[in-house]
């Protein structure tokens, strides 16, 4: 009887033991983080910072960052989907990848990803030339009205997070403007510095080291440290624009085993609470955040629906 009870207990605990063992042994070989931009971009920096923190104290294997650029993240998604679903390849993505997939009508590929953790909120904001006539958000409203839908808003390509945020701002203000797309944020900033455009839609970190630029309004819930003079959209009476961000997060292939996924979640939670990580995020005028599972999935799905409405 005792023997039967013992065997039953052993059999019942096998999956748990397996899972625990897998959680403890993963990873056994080098991990790879796939980035959809060239080295040096914001998401590339984020992935490399994560690799450093993971290697420092969380895993005993090397963490390699691989840049698979092209198609605003679509090429990287296809690359991820071709890898084995063993958890050894992590995808570093931003909300911009979701927008690209929706804009190119490839959102079905997004369903094949498992959204592991959203780790950074980089809030959207409106930026102008400090020496221009626009000093406050009220100035901007009057200016846009006076230009009768012909003010020039600059930023990266159409259909991206910045362009869609501009559309939301116009909808909230009940007015229209021209969206002038550039190949990169850097070229669009040059257009503002050269006074060829009126407003740049981007993120607060775009103004770091560029004293000629000024943030007029930011979508963060509270005023950001280092940008205390920039009011939030909520303060300005546009709560619907609050919380809009170019988030950064990590995903796996959807068929990744649950135990490996659970291990990743623990690793990411530990890494993102590391002071080095927190300092890195804050230095870029962004805010650390940690959303996983249903929360992250619902953020992605809400964005897909919202983007579809704006784009089509």
């Amino acid at each position: 009887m005792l023997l039967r009870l013992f065997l039953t207990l052993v059999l019942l605990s096998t999956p748990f033991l397996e899972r625990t063992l897998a959680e403890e042994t993963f990873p056994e070989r080098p991990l790879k983080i796939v980035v959809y931009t060239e080295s040096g971009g914001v998401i590339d920096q984020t992935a490399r910072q994560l690799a450093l923190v993971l290697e420092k104290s969380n895993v005993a294997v090397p963490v390699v960052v691989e840049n698979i650029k092209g198609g605003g993240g679509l090429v990287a998604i296809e690359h991820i989907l071709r890898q084995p679903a063993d958890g050894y390849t992590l995808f570093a993505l931003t909300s911009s990848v979701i927008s690209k997939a929706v804009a190119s009508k490839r959102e079905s590929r997004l369903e094949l990803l498992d959204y592991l953790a959203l780790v950074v909120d980089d809030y959207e904001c409106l930026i102008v030339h400090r020496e221009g006539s626009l000093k406050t958000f009220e100035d901007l409203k009057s200016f846009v009205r006076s230009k009768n839908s012909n003010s020039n808003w600059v930023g990266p390509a159409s259909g991206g997070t910045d362009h869609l945020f501009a559309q939301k701002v116009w909808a909230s203000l009940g007015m229209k403007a021209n969206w002038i797309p550039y190949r990169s944020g850097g070229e669009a900033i040059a257009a503002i510095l050269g006074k060829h455009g009126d407003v740049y839609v981007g993120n607060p970190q775009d103004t770091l080291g560029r004293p000629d630029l000024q943030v007029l309004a930011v979508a963060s819930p509270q005023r950001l440290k280092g940008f205390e003079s920039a009011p939030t959209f909520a303060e300005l009476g546009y709560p619907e624009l609050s919380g809009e961000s170019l988030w950064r997060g990590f995903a796996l292939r959807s068929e990744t085993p649950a135990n490996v996924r659970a291990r990743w979640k623990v690793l990411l939670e530990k890494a993102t609470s590391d002071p080095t990580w927190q300092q890195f995020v804050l230095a870029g005028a962004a805010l650390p955040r940690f959303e996983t599972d249903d929360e992250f999935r619902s953020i992605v799905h809400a964005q897909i629906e919202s983007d579809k409405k704006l784009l089509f």
Partner: protein
Amino acid sequence: MAELDFFNGILVGLASVAEPFNLLMIGFGALLGILFGATPGLSPSMGVALLVPLSFGMDATTAFFFFVAVYQAANYGGSITAVAINTPGTPAAVVTALDGFPMTQQGHPESSFGYSLYASVVGGIIGAILLVLFAVPLAQVGLYFGPHEYFALAVFGLSTVVAFSTKAPLKAIVATLFGLLVSTIGTDPFSGLERSTFGVIDLYDGVSLLPAMIGLFALGEVFEQFSRKSQAQKAVVSTMESLLPLKRVFAFPRVLFGSSVLGTAIGVIPGAGATIASFICYGRAKKVSRTPEKFGDGAAEGIIASEAANSSSVGGALVPLLALGIPGSATDAVLLGALTLHGLTAGPELVRQRPDVVYGIFVALFVANFAIYFLGRFGVQIWIRILRIPQSIVISSVFLLCLWGSFTVRNSVFDCWVCLLFGVLGYGMKRGGYPIAPLVLGLVLGEMIEMNFRRALLMGEFSLFFTKPLSLVLLLLTLISLVSPVVKGSLRHGEPD
């Protein structure tokens, strides 16, 4: 930290660069840059991007001296394979190949390698001098370029097609138009809609420029050699024993210094870059030359114009990066990110916070050019030996190198197919007597022309193209560039025999 005056800043920079480890890293960066540049498929921006992770073990100053050396040297390195085997290592070296390769084929590799090395170094040093002396005012000039000016500059660049079309003007126009047409493939950044991608994700950003160019030039040449297999295959035998003396490059002062200054100025304009600088300076060199008919058949001035322009554009492109925090080129964009990874922010604040980095970069650029000179002189002995290898082995190796180089651009097999397709196209064009450079010119400038034209129309009236002074001047120069050969031709016809 209080802002340093210029003289003290340079002293701080000198002290920083003079540290033995920093000097060593500049030399190592120059060596790696030359090798990266000489590898088809590895552009300067990709070379620097690959080395960003390596820099984590260095402090910020050492890392940036290293990167600047790689950046400058890669622009020279691109000319090596262009001159040796008609395989441009970088997009800008396409123009160098036009005269460099024929000169090598004529049995003068010491001259073709010599001219490209010396012009690169002189151009690089002039670019560095202009960066050091005029960074702030030059950056403001760069910002003056709006969509109207960019459009006019690109159209002016396109007008240099006349420089490649002496023998068959109609065919050159057809090639240019085809290049422009290919440049429309990809996502339209204004509407977000895909154009001629046929649902292929690899075409979402358009046809990858490097594999296309490698195919057009190198594979086209390989196919040409294959088709002539019945003919005796001979290795290039040089007619000289030692490298061309340095003073020979100074025999063309107008082209050398003019291209260096113009190349720097074009480099300052964010997004214009080394390739456009090379094309424009080549066109200008042909115009001012006393022997324009030699261009395309191994003219020293052609090599000098291209190399001086693309090397000097490095100093120019660093102007907006250091003065404004705006990337002046694709490589600058990688450098900007790398600065952030090292906890620094590019822009006017950087010179106050870290004068050792900014002034150090100024000094490092000079040191890098000297390193390129010595490494280049040593390297030429090796490149010339490679030319002595039998052609059959060289051709097979080039074929593999082309496919490997195309693959490395994005780790994509699709790009190998692009390379092969453009290789067949390049071969067909050669057979049909169509010049290849105008096609590349159309490919390079197509996006710039279209995007800026549309931006300009969205931002204001059409008449602004003619009322904005710089735009007007550039459009007038375009007109002169297009009309002058016709006028010269009719005057020549009118002359008594």
